């Protein structure tokens, strides 16, 4: 018996080893190198390999980096909250009210996501612009007298565009969590005298919490690292930390500082993610 078990273990390990090896070589090693790099300094064309905290000191004291970091976090959190709140009713509708053609709905939700990301962001620029689709539509209806300018080249545009870009990633995990809910629990809550609202907040929502947490993390983490959306629709007020990382690796030619900024923002995001995970676990755990 133990013989068989160890053979299974060996086979499993040997099956996964090529993929693991690739991930170690192409992910773990580069990540370690970025961390090392962030302790070095750029000396014109050379890299000075003395270990120093200078980059981190710069990243955490210079107002520009702090402002960008703070704004990135703020925008990402708003994007995440907006995306998840907008997505939840759709997932709820799909799970509880759509009986036929569920797969078709899911397919239709994912299709826009497969258009080139660049073009989707660019098309939002077309929609939100001064002579854009939205403004000309509102002008025609007579709802406004002159084109709105508050909708492009600022943080609002970034939030809207990203909420659109990450929609399927928010809907799918919540939908899966809702599908797993045992419908008899809802009946039980009703039989025990809970109204629809109480039933939703005491049974449905806590049980859907794993999906909500997953959706939150899936949207939040990559959003902090986005630099296309801020660049195309964000204007100067919408620039985020990822734009600065990209500039440091590109034009500014200060890769070690860029690495320090990347590591710093990853640490902050990881910390927030852990907090969200724990909070979700606590809230979802109450019913059990």
């Amino acid at each position: 018996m133990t013989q068989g078990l160890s053979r299974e273990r060996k086979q499993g390990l040997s099956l996964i080893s090529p993929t693991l090896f690739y991930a170690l070589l192409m992910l773990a090693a580069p990540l370690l190198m970025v961390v090392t790099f962030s302790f070095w300094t750029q000396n014109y064309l050379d890299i000075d390999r003395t270990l120093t905290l200078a980059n981190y000191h710069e990243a955490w004291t210079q107002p520009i980096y702090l402002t960008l970091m703070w704004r990135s976090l703020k925008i990402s959190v708003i994007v995440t909250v907006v995306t998840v709140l907008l997505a939840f009713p759709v997932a709820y509708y799909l799970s509880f009210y759509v009986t036929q053609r569920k797969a078709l709905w899911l397919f239709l939700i994912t299709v826009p996501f497969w258009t080139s990301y660049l073009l989707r962001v660019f098309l939002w620029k077309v929609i939100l612009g001064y002579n854009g689709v939205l403004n000309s539509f509102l002008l025609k209806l007579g709802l406004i007298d002159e084109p709105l300018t508050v909708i492009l080249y600022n943080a609002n545009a970034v939030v809207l565009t990203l909420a659109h870009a990450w929609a399927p990633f928010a809907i799918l995990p919540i939908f899966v969590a809702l599908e797993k809910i045992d419908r008899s629990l809802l009946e039980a809550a009703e039989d025990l005298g809970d109204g629809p609202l109480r039933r939703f907040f005491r049974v449905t929502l806590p049980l859907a919490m794993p999906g909500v947490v997953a959706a939150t993390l899936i949207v939040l983490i990559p959003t902090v690292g986005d630099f296309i959306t801020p660049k195309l629709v964000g204007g100067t007020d919408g620039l985020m930390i990822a734009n600065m990382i990209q500039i440091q690796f590109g034009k500014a030619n200060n890769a070690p500082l860029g690495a320090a900024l990347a590591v710093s923002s990853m640490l902050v995001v990881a910390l927030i993610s852990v907090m969200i995970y724990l909070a979700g676990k606590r809230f979802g755990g109450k019913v059990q």
Partner: protein
Amino acid sequence: MRALRKLTTINWLMIYAVAYMIFLYAPVILLPMFAFNDATIIAFPLSGFTTKWFSALWNTDALHGAVANSALVALITAVISTLLGASAARAAAQYNFPLKRGIIGFIMLPLVLPEIIVAVALLVMLMQLGLSLSLWTVVAGHVLICTPFSIAILSSAFAGMDRSLEEASFDLGENRWGTFRRITLPLIMPGVISSLLITFTISLDEFIIAFFLTGTDVTLPVYIWSQLRFPTKLPSVMALGTILLTVSVVMLILAEWFRRRAARRQGLDAQAGGGII
């Protein structure tokens, strides 16, 4: 009374869901509208129907290079990540081994890691190793982010596979290769094709990693990015986007069709499976 209440909530939710779908499709619908619009400026009102932006694409040599590069990168990425994904998915779905959760979690990490971090990390490593950027470095990055998707698709294919069929094949005297070729592969084939199509599509559309890791040969999204700066090139970009969208949607429909066939072949409920779609 209660039935009535239920009816009204259904309606509100449905109206909301439909409005949400309009929000999702708003930019996508504009793409073909401007691609066939006879004006250089991307704005309403539309002026007239034309296919000249599509013929303009036909005469742009730089674009053809980018398309060829992207197709090559996407093809190699799809094959490598599906191979890596298949062996990892099989290990994940059918075997127990030490540190299983940790190892698989680590392999799946690129799914949640911001792409800029992956790109920057690979760039730093390549710089340190003194390797120059090329299409191969783009492939290396794309394989990393595509493998988790392949694992997600193929895990369900392997989980639904009846292992006694393989045992029967061994008992009947087939060796490992013969069993793999004649039993395992046909059973998971639809999953494999679905994985190839999805990873191909992801690689074809991926911009951030390609932007950082591409050398002098650019991929298609990097080419599009360079064109977005020139207002006169925009209608052609719209036409290009329309073609890309059509290709992606066709690939996705094929992938979904193969995934369902896989589920049916294994006697599972096609509606219930995980998968990407």
